[in-house]
């Protein structure tokens, strides 16, 4: 298990290799990328920032929980911060297990909880020149 905040482009192949093992026949990967449209607005880029030490700590805690709930699973997660253009990957999580059900369960738990709990923020930059901090609690309330 490893969780890192990074400032470079994510390498999904390297994450897949990191969890690979001859005894684990099922590997699952999630990749989140910057979308060109969010809530109906045209996005040109996103600036991600984080409380880095706590984000790594919280991401590690989530992965440890997912591994505890799915015995034998191995997880690795990286979240990129800084300015990301449309199509670039902001988060990548890989999970491997002997069987596919556990790998997929662990992967979903990890992405759901990291999105809820890791102290990471994003400011969207729009095509019309404006920008705003994204607040998912406000989106959910609509």
């Amino acid at each position, binding site marked *: 298990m490893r969780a890192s905040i990074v400032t470079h482009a994510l390498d999904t192949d390297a994450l897949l290799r990191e969890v690979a093992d001859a005894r684990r026949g099922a590997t699952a990967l999630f990749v989140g990328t910057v979308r060109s449209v969010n809530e109906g607005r045209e996005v040109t880029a996103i600036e*991600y920032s984080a*409380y880095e*030490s706590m984000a790594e700590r919280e991401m590690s805690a989530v992965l440890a929980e997912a591994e505890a709930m799915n015995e034998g699973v191995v997880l690795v997660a990286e979240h990129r911060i800084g300015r990301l253009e449309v199509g670039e990957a902001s988060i990548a999580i890989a999970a491997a297990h002997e069987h596919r059900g556990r790998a997929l369960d662990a992967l979903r738990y990890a992405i759901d909880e990291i999105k809820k709990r890791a*102290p*990471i*923020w*994003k400011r969207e930059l729009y095509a019309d020149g404006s920008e705003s*901090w994204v607040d*998912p609690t406000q989106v959910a309330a609509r």
Partner: protein
Amino acid sequence: MLITVRFFASYADALGRKDAQLSLGDGASVRDLLKSVSDLPGASALPANPLVAVNQVYAVAATRLNAGDEVALIPPVAGG
């Protein structure tokens, strides 16, 4: 005791600063800290009960603070 509190993202923008040193009574809680934060210029833009992390763990209003604690206000997270 002196407690340094860190601000991030929209909160740092609203307050125009990334941290503040607050003077709190011994045995002060997160609730006391938030009251002190609410006196800072720009604090009216913050929600009434922002999330607080103490030593990188989410805390509740009753959590006691100790000198040297790493304290931060956590805006609504939006990672992923």
